[in-house]
């Protein structure tokens, strides 16, 4: 498959417009890709202030250099069990409608450039919850990367009901 070409540094001959760049993150052993253009920052464990009454997916808020960022517990959003690791998870800060959100994930991987042509749609049997927040799949060497649809990922709670 063309997956061999998917690695970073590969596919230079494809020309920039044929490539998409993703920050890979791992959550519960699964690799996800977040479009690099939406990523503002990658953070280590942060002090997060809880927000009572907020939807369960909201882990709290944190202070990122003077800006208030809403932290999203992506595990919860994806219906996964809480993080069991020793240290708090890492965060990827994304921008959505001019607001910043910090997505709490387990680990941050590398930045991949992948050809658009390798992008595949979600398999039909994907969990509806996941199907709702993901855009599609890339086949990498030995594993699959699920592309997160950040805009959809950040719609939940009342906003989702209204939509």
């Amino acid at each position, binding site marked *: 498959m063309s997956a061999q070409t998917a690695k970073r540094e590969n596919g230079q001959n494809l020309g920039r417009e044929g490539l998409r760049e993703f920050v890979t993150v791992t959550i519960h052993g699964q690799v996800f890709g977040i479009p690099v253009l939406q990523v503002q920052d990658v953070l280590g464990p942060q002090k997060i*202030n*809880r927000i009572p009454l907020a939807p369960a997916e909201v882990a709290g*808020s944190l202070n990122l250099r003077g800006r208030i960022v809403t932290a999203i517990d992506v595990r919860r959003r994806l219906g996964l069990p809480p993080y069991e690791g020793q240290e708090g998870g890492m965060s990827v800060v994304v921008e959505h409608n001019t607001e910043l959100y910090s997505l709490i994930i387990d680990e941050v991987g590398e930045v991949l450039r992948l050809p658009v042509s390798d992008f595949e749609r979600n398999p039909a049997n994907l969990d509806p919850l996941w199907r709702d927040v993901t855009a599609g799949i890339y086949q990498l060497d030995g594993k699959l990367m699920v592309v997160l649809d950040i805009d959809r990922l*950040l719609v939940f709670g009342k906003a989702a009901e209204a939509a």
Partner: protein
Amino acid sequence: MGTNLSVGMAKDTEMDDLLREFLTESNESLAKLDVELVQFEQNPNDEGLLSNIFRLVHTIKGTCGFLGLPRLASVAHASENVLGKIRDGELKVSPAAISSVLESIDKIKHLLEVLEETEAEPEGTDQDLIDRLNAIAEGKDVTPAGNDTPQAEIVAAPPPAAATGSLFDQLGGEAAISTAVDIFYDKVTKDEKLLPFFEGVDMERLRNMQRAFLTMALGGENTYSGRDLRGAHAGLVAKGLKDIHFDRVMTALRQTLSELGIGEDLMIEVLTVAERTRKDVLGLGAPAEPMPAAAPKAEAAKPAAAKSPALAPKAAKPKAAARTPAEPEVASQDSTSKESAIANQSIRVNVGLLENLMNLVSELVLTRNALLQMVRGQSDSELNVPLQRLSQTTSELQEGVMKTRMQPIGSAWNKLPRIVRDLSMDLGKKIDLQMHGADTELDRQVLELIKDPLTHMVRNSGDHGLEATADRVAAGKPETGTITLNAYHEGGHIIIEVSDDGRGINIEKVKAKALKNGLATEAELEAMPDLQVQQFIFKAGFSTAETVTSVSGRGVGMDVVRTNIERIGGTIELKSVEGRGTTFIIKIPLTLAIVSALIVSCSGERFAVPQISVVELVRASDNSDHAIEQINGAPVLRLRETLLPLVSLRRLLGLESAKGGADIAPNSEKEGLILVMNVGASTFGIVVDKVYDTEEIVVKPVAPILRDISLYSGNTILGDGSVVMILDPNGIAAKVGESRIAEGEGADHLVGQVGQHDERMALLVFRAQSTEPKAVPLSLVARLEEIEVSKIERSGGVPVVQYRGQLMPLLSVSTEVCLKTEGRQPVVVFTDENHSMGLVVDEIVDIVDDRLKIELSAQRPGILGSAIIDGRATEVIDAGYYVSLSQNDRQGAAKQEPFGSINGNRTVLLVDDSPFFRNLLTPLLSVAGYKVTTVDSADEALSVLQDGGHFDVIISDIEMPGMNGYEFAQAIRSDERWGKLPLVALSSHATPADMARGRQAGFDDYVPKFDRDAILNSLSETLLAVRGAA
């Protein structure tokens, strides 16, 4: 001003500066004129006002002249004429005259608008308006709209004749001007300091120009052409004209005028006209190329100085070129100092710049807070002193920047008096506009956005809200309708109320309309509370419907108003009582603001509470004066004479589950710090664990995901860098109300399992006259008081005490009133509408929460019977009996009908299975003037009706054995004989859902069982509505 802001940057640079300034200035003057003219019409004797108006119009006219805007100048001239005559007492202030002047103001505004867009006056003539103004000036009676030919003659007449009221005429016309110019030039040309400026100047031409200019500037015929002279003054400045020279010219002018025997007042006016041009003339000295437009204005000021260069552009040039590089700086220095005296000391700044500045200051505040946090506790830090200064400077800076963005709301109201006045004339209604809180400041951006909605609402109130004069008189209201605007700050929001005392909103008609427009089904409408029905006027469908104005009274464009207000994060509410008027309440948040907040913690989480809503802090614990008590699970605090409902922040935010840990004391429900909050009309307490200090916080909006949590108004970063949520006192206040209902409901469910007849309620247990405890439902008690025995007086044999400005009779459970002889006498106060009575007791024992089941009914008046309360046999007091007794005691009071004469012969059928309530309500209703028939079941009620019983209104309980209240209502509604009878439901289940169900079943109103006032109000309103509909 809007005009100023609407001038885009690109245009700014193109449009000539002078013209732009003229536009801005004139628009400001015009706004003032609108207001002042209307005031003046109301106070025609206010000379100060008149001269102010005259001056404003005059300035506009004068400036138009300089700029070569003949059309504007002639309109302004004509209206100045009228004003001049009024000032001189030759003309009386009449609505027609004021209307015409206002019309001319409108015309000027219109011309200015075109001018702003095209930089040229529009084609056309305003002869019609001018004719009319002139006719008025002549003392002819002219209707504002009409226009007849005779007046045309006046216009045709030479301008000087027409300009009677102007300065020009006052000075003595053309001849006088001519003389003045001669004398003046004599003076200035003899002044050696000024002489150099006249070198090479054609003095004859200069004098002619001067004459023309003065004639025009002072209100005479406009033969002067400002535009011809553009650029002239630049040369003058280039020659080195400075402030001192200008001063000399002014002195010369003053001497000239005084030699001519001109009166002091007049002289000042002329000098003012001249002085006004100072900065324009001198401003030309700036290194930039002479502004072609700036020149004309200069003429006005310094006839002599200004003119001379105009004439000698060629001659002056070589010299100018030589001097310019050396002199400008000096010139501008000189001028800045003086300029400030005349020019208003303001500059216009791009809003984006301010916005940016504000953001920077916010960041600075946060940084300052962080620094303060770091050195806190280190008293010996060398940073302390500089930090103190930094802190103070930051605060001041912050305050300053905030101020630049704030404007009094009054500036948005400027137009309103005029609009209301016009409305009043058009509609033939008498309308009084009252404005309160005009100095309430709000963010200028918000201000701009609410201007239009407000105007619209006021117009609506005048047009549709207020009845025609005849109707008002018929309704027994004062002829003059009142529209009231009220603005004030309330906990981070600005509240603007627009109310009228007009006809209110007719619910039935709105319903009909909603039905017709398909906004709701009939069943839905039936189930809706009136308040909800009224909200339909905000629906889009209501704005365009043809009959709406005559039907609902309102609705034109209210949807637009609401949309606009919601767009800036505000809310709009509506309260209307048919026949009494309508109030709109607009609530606008301060989106970006730095506020002082109290940092509190609960279960280890910190929160900020805006300090503006916090009235006081109370520490409560079981062994202090302030103990948290429970009424049916609802925590309350007795604070001085009020009962303060409490809400636990922990419960409110659902915190307990999250941290069942160490720092929560086991008795935390009993102890804690209480923030006493005052939000709007409600006062309540929030129980928290700890209160830290106050901090200035920058309110940042919460993420959209959190926006529907009504308890937060924003979030912020504290000095230590942590993020905390800002609690919204308004949101909490709303929750306090809700939880009360929810608590009540919960209790009822409990009762439901035990038995339907038992009502669980809070009871006040006390002792009086005997050792046997007595009880009364707490909901009937207004207050508990302890009265100094020495303050008790006697009146007509009855002990009374002065209480809140009234005499309150004191009664006892027995006929003998046994008072304590010294110390303080505990009294249970019951309040009925306007007056209070005190029931003398020996001791307040407790407040208990129990089922009230009357086991033995007593035949003794004042006692309903006995019940087992808190495990003891207790006599239950009939509060209604004592209230009515106290009113009978009062001379003439028995004749009073608290709810108006309409209740006099009204008959009420009261259906309730509980004898307690029948006994409680009967006296209450009787006192209010109703004739009451009681039955204990729905079946019996139906049979009374079958037997031909006639009633005006039926009050029914909901939970009853056999047929329940809903079924009863349906039964009533389905029978055409009494299907139209007003039905009021009475229930302890007063949740919105219950109410909706009640309405669906056919009840007209649904009131909580224990709320006496609500019951009485509901009855009289229901009856009123029926009567109104009939």
